[in-house]
């Protein structure tokens, strides 16, 4: 499973694992959206420490997830983005709209 989730008091913790590319992006989006719709979290903390590769599909995943969180009044925090993935996200200037560390 490319995403594992657990939630506590309307905080959703999700771990993104493995390679985030076009091949896997749909499943990741679907899983995150299902979890968001089920829990309606105030905050989604997306831990990316397990990501071994990311291309521009990851940008789409984060943008859509953020959109989903905003539509239910919550926020998205992205943690532990590895260097390669961070470079991809920064190439799209994503740090200006999504806080990632």
């Amino acid at each position, binding site marked *: 499973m490319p995403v594992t989730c657990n939630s506590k008091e309307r905080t959703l913790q999700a771990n993104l694992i493995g390679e985030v*590319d076009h*091949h896997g992006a749909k499943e990741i989006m679907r899983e995150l959206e299902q979890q968001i719709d089920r829990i309606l979290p105030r905050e989604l903390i997306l831990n990316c420490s397990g990501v071994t590769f990311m*291309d*521009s599909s990851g940008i789409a995943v984060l*943008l859509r997830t953020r959109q989903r969180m905003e539509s239910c009044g919550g926020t998205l925090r992205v943690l532990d983005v590895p*260097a*390669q993935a961070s*470079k*991809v996200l920064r190439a*799209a200037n994503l740090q200006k709209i999504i806080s990632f560390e």
Partner: protein
Amino acid sequence: MPTVTHTNEVTISFLSRSANEGFARTAVACFAAQLDPTLDEIGDVKTAVSEAVTNAIVHGYPNELGKITLRVRLLPDRTLEITVRDWGVGIPDVDKARTPLYTTGNEERSGMGFTIMESFMDHLKVRSKEGKGTTLVMRKRFSPRAGAAM
């Protein structure tokens, strides 16, 4: 016979299935290992190959499976050249396709593929003809390394 100016070359041919995106970028990374690249350089090349092959799969063959070839060459001066070719529907307007955020793809596309290829590689050229297919050539020069083969 023309003189061969590159020092090594490999060509891989595969079907436009998304499962091959990971295979393609890993194959290029393995071939590029002979340059003793930095982790950063390998990351850049893998990302660019992933974008190029995904474009061929998503936009070259939107409605059918087709053939994609990936050629990787080692040029003098520690330069890696990657050519991704498809015989699909082609890109009507290449300049428009290269515009950041422009996409005709689905929800999982961001329109940033070309921007990433341009910023991660040193050189990018796209030739396309509607109904005939698309050829994308990109190059990256690797930093000098002590003890590297070339």
